[in-house]
């Protein structure tokens, strides 16, 4: 019914929104959310391909990606918290101790 290209277009749009969000936003938590959006766009692509290729590999991969994304979320938020303790800010512009 719904063709493969619609899923892929949606996945590509989500991925681009994630990339743009990562590059343009200043708040580190929002940057991190954009990263999660990118990972989930890839998940959508996997599931769509798995459906249209009649192969379970894609869906199994999604399991692993979700587990890894969860672990990454935990580590990332711990790092952001540690950063907040030291610097009292979550603005990406303030992370400028080391420059060129």
């Amino acid at each position: 019914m719904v063709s493969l290209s619609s899923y892929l277009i949606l996945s590509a749009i989500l991925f681009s929104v994630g990339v743009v969000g990562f590059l343009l936003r200043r708040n580190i938590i929002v940057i991190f959310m954009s990263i999660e959006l990118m990972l989930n766009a890839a998940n959508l692509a996997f599931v769509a391909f798995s459906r249209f290729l009649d192969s379970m590999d894609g869906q199994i991969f999604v399991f692993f990606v979700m587990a890894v994304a969860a672990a990454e979320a935990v580590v990332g938020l711990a790092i952001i918290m540690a950063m907040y303790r030291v610097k009292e800010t979550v603005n990406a512009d303030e992370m400028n101790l080391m420059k060129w």
Partner: protein
Amino acid sequence: MNLVIPEINWSAIGPELTLSITAMVLLLLSVVASPTARRAIPYLSLLGIAFALLLCISLWGKSAYAFNRMVVLDNYALFFKIIFLITTALTVLMSIRYLKEQGYEHGEYYVLILFAAVGMMFMASAADLIIVFLGLETFSLAIYVLAGFFRAQPKSIESSLKYFLLGAFSTGFLLYGIALIYGATGTTNLKGIYEFVSKAPALTDPLLLIGMGLLIVGFGFKVASVPFHMWTPDVYEGAPTSITAFMSVGPKAAGFAAFLRVFLYALSPLQTDWIWILWVLAVLTMTLGNVVAIAQKNIKRMLAYSSIAHAGYILVAMVAADELGTASVLYYMLAYAFMNLGAFGVIILFGRKGEENVNISDYSGMAAKYPLLAAVMAIFMFSLAGIPPTAGFVGKFYIFSAAVKAGYIGLAIIGVLNSALSVYFYLRITVMMYMRSPEKEFAKLEPSPAMVIALIIAVFGTLQIGITPSHYLNLAKQSILALM
């Protein structure tokens, strides 16, 4: 339903199992043992690494698949595993006194380093893109935490944050690339991809080509090639120096291990498509790394840009995708491990709490007070610059002759010019040490026995690999048979 239980070949992942079990035991020890017992944790981790190394050497020559043909055991994987284990061992040796001095003596550090090594070892023996991804994420997450280990130092946390954000970003690209390749070929298994791509009509599938491009982005970030290198100087400068040493060798070698397997085996029929991309990447990486390193005043940043340049040399070897080229990648990684870890070891030894001694000018006059240390540092600098009879020279020689043999004369010329350029900033340190007068008083240096052992191993490795290169090159050639 008829379930077929997949074959799990436990003996094929022996080294990884050893390290994982050691890491888990150490994790438990770090919380339940008494504080005096906790001081044994680094030495126990060394024991685990030694055992894993013995296992790797005993498995040499064997070839097997594990986990339903997703993990492969062959000489290529074992070669890289040995590199990772040597890297881990040297890092642990160099960290023992360093952590105590800085006041961060926690057992979890060693646990994280061992888990990172496990991740890298899986990435080297991956025969399926899932395992590449899992291995990549395993060691990346461990190193994100390790880079921020010195929690009270703002630079350390900032470097961890930058590495984490950019690392996760590139993982997103890598994952999307894997998704597109899966969509184009119907499988994530490297052998399956190779068989699919070998049939001619596949060569112009846009999904496959875009997926390949995204994979280059993902891998390019991990090995710090231009234009994905922006994280390297900041992260190397801020992280604890022992972790910088680990980071400069481990992830790069792991990234190249997977990069080579995917591109020189699975995607090899598409060679005409990706070889020019890698050509451009190699030139940009070498040139930018060497040129910017000249302007650096901080020795850790200089070594960061130098490691970018070395990634460029290895990309040159990848472009020359024949037998000598691929074997020289392995050889160069081995040589690079010893010389880079040695250089960082000297930096760790020379700095102390409160007086980090990270500026290049702090090294002036070192030879008068510490002649042995200066000589050791000079050996590493010569090796990085590519001056005979060290391993760095032979590695570069093999790489550039492979490039010339494959017909990329222009690339080889650019490489040699860059190598000549790099001699300036490597030898600048040597000149500072020997020919300038000391700028300030040097405190008394008391190297721990572990650090002395680490430096001796690094010097020995650098010189031995350089003086008898053919033995190691033959080992490397034996290892790449699976790829050809």
